[in-house]
C-alpha cells in the first residue's frame, strides 16, 4: 500500500480548490461573531459613541458652546435653575449654565480614553509578565503569583483612595490604578494559560527542533493566548469606564472641572430633582456604553470558544 494509499487518505479532505487557504480559527470566530446579533448591534453602538466623541468639537462649534463655557443668562433661569432641553441647549444646561450635550460628548472622550489606554497598558504588561512568569516558572513565578493573589484580594477603590490621599487625584493616577489592577487580572490569566500550554507536546516539539525559549514563547505560546486575552481585554474596557466614572463621581478622578461622566453626574446631585435630565442623560449614556462593551465582550467570548457556556 504505502504512499498511494496514503495519498488516498489525503484525498478524504473536504474538497477545496488547491492553494486556497483554509478557514483558520480567526476567520471562523469572526464569522460566528457576525451571526451574533446582540454583539453586532453593540459594535455599531460603540462605533457611534466613538464617532460622537471624535465629533465633540464639531458639536461645540455648531451650538457655539465650549465644554467649559458658562452661560449664566441663557443657561440658567432667573430663579437660578438650569434650563431644560431647547433649540440652543439641546439637552439642557447644568447648574452653572454649561451645555450638557457638549460636556457629555467631551466626557465620552475621557471615558473612552481611560478605558482603552488603561486596558492597552494592562494587556501589554500583563501578557509579557504573565507569559514570562508562567513559562520560566521557578521562584520568580511563585512570588509573582502570590503578589497577584494579594493585589487582587484588595479592593481597588481602597487603594485608589490611599494613593489619591498621598499623591493627589488626577488623570495619570487614575489610569495607573486602573491599569495596575487590570494588569494583575490579565497577568494571572495569562500565567495560568501559559502554564497549561507549557506542558503541551507542541512546546516540547519546538524544543526538540532546537527553538530557543524566547522564540518558543512568542511563536508557539503567544498565538494560543490571543483568545483568552481578547476576551478579558474586551471585558476590562467597560470595567475601566465604570471605574473612571465612579472615581470621578467620588472626587478622586479627573480634575472636577474636566467634563467626565462621573463628574457631570456628581454635579447633577444638587439639581436633578428639578432638572432630571442632568441625571438621566449622562446616566443613560454611561449605561449604554458599558452595556454595549459587555455584550460585545460576551459575544467575543462565545465566538472564540463556542463550546464554553456563558458564565
Amino acid at each position, binding site marked *: 500500500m504505502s504512499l498511494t494509499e496514503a495519498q488516498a487518505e489525503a484525498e478524504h479532505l473536504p474538497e477545496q480548490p488547491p492553494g486556497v487557504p483554509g478557514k483558520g480559527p480567526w476567520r471562523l470566530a469572526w464569522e460566528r461573531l457576525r451571526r451574533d446579533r446582540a454583539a453586532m448591534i453593540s459594535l455599531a453602538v460603540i462605533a457611534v459613541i466613538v464617532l460622537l466623541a471624535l465629533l465633540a468639537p464639531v458639536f461645540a462649534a455648531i451650538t457655539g458652546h465650549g465644554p467649559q463655557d458658562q452661560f449664566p443668562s441663557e443657561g440658567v433661569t432667573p430663579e437660578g435653575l438650569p434650563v431644560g432641553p431647547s433649540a440652543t441647549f439641546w439637552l439642557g444646561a447644568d447648574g452653572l449654565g454649561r451645555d450638557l450635550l457638549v460636556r457629555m460628548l467631551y466626557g465620552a472622550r475621557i471615558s473612552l480614553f481611560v478605558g482603552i489606554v488603561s486596558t492597552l497598558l494592562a494587556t501589554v504588561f500583563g501578557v509579557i509578565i504573565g507569559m514570562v512568569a508562567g513559562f520560566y516558572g521557578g521562584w520568580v513565578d*511563585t512570588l509573582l503569583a502570590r503578589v497577584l493573589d494579594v493585589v487582587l484580594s484588595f479592593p481597588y477603590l481602597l487603594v485608589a483612595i490611599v494613593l489619591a490621599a498621598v499623591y493627589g487625584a488626577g488623570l495619570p493616577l487614575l489610569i495607573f490604578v486602573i491599569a495596575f489592577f487590570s494588569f494583575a487580572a490579565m497577568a494571572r490569566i495569562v500565567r495560568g494559560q501559559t502554564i497549561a500550554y507549557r506542558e503541551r507536546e507542541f512546546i516540547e516539539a519546538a524544543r526538540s527542533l532546537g527553538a530557543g525559549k524566547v522564540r518558543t514563547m512568542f511563536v508557539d505560546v503567544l498565538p494560543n493566548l490571543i483568545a483568552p486575552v481578547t476576551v478579558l481585554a474586551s471585558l476590562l474596557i467597560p470595567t475601566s469606564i465604570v471605574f473612571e466614572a465612579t472615581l470621578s463621581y467620588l472626587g478622586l478622578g479627573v480634575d472636577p472641572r474636566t467634563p467626565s461622566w462621573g463628574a457631570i453626574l456628581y454635579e447633577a446631585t444638587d439639581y436633578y430633582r428639578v432638572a432630571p435630565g442632568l441625571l438621566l442623560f449622562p446616566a443613560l449614556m454611561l449605561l449604554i456604553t458599558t452595556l454595549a462593551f459587555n455584550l460585545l465582550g460576551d459575544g467575543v467570548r462565545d465566538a472564540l470558544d463556542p463550546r464554553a457556556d456563558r458564565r
Partner: protein
Amino acid sequence: MLSVTDVRKYFPIKEGLFIKKEVGRVHAVDGVSLEVRAGETLGIVGESGCGKSTLARCITGLHHVTAGRIEFDGKDIATLDPKAFRRDVQMIFQDPYGSLNPRRRVGSIIADPLKIHRIEGDTRKRVQELMALVGLNPEHYNRFPAEFSGGQRQRIGIARALALNPRLVVCDEPVSALDVSIQAQVINLLTDLQDQLGLTYVFIAHDLSVVRYVSDRVAVMYLGQVVELAVGEDLYKTPRHPYTNALLSAASVADPDLSAKRERIVLMGDVPSPINPPTGCRFHPRCPKARERCVAEMPLLIDSGNGHLTACHFPVQPGEHLTSEHPQIQQQSTEPQL
C-alpha cells in the same frame, strides 16, 4: 551510532509552601544501557510508566540525564553543540493533536526547523517537497492542523522531523493515538522513508505487536530498566524473561499467530510505584517464578548467546510452562504496598 551507558533519570518530588523540599524521587529510568546501530530500527516496549518515553527524551536531549552517558557518534551529547545535535537527531511525538500548534498553519509548522536553523533556500518549495514525501497534498500548506485527520497530522509531524535531514529519528509511540486502520499506513510510511532516506529509528511502543513489524531488535523495559533485549524474531520465538512472556501472552489475544501456541498469563497486582521501587529484581512482586534470590539480588543483563540479553536469575527455558500462580515468598517489609 548511539550508545547509552547506565543512564539514570530521576525526577524529584517537591513539597512545601515557600521553600520546596525534596521528599522523594521518581526513578523513571534507572540504569539503562543499550546501543543503536546505524540503519537499524531498535524497538523499545513496556507498559505505560516503565520509563520508555523518558528514555526517548533523554536520547533526544530533551531531558538532562541524572547519571550515565549518552554518546552519539562516539561523542557525549552533553558536550555536543545542541544545534548540530538537533539536526542529526529528531523526534516524532505520540499525540498528533497535542504536538502541532493549533493556531499556526501547517506550512509554517513544517518550516519551523528550517527557520530555527536558518537554512537558506526556497522554504516554501522545501516544505511542499516534504509534504509530498510524507503523502500529503502539497497544496494544503496553508491550512490549520484542525483541518486534517489524525493520520494526516502524524504525517505533518513526520515531515517536520525530517526537514533537517536527520540521521536518527526517535519515534515515541507514533501510532498509539491513531485508529487501528490508520496505524498500518503510518507504519508503512515510516518504513518506506527509512529505506528511501537511510534513517535509523528508535521506535517506542507499548505493545509488542506494533514493534514486531518494524524492529530489527527489541528491548523490553520494566520499571525503568531493560529486562530483555534481542533480535526481534528471537525475542518472539524464545522469550526468556517472565515479563516478556507475560507481555507476549497478552498480545496474543489480538494476534492469532501467537495465540495458538501460548496460554494467557495474567500478572498479579499492579506495576509498583517508581518512587520506591522493589528491591532486587524489579519484577519479583509480580513474577510467577520469583524466589528469595530475586528479592535480595538485582539480576544483571547477561548475554545468553547471539546477542540475546536477559536480566533474570531464572530465565524461562524453551518449552517451559508458566502459570499465573504467584509463589508465596518471604516479602521484605520495605516492599511498598499500593
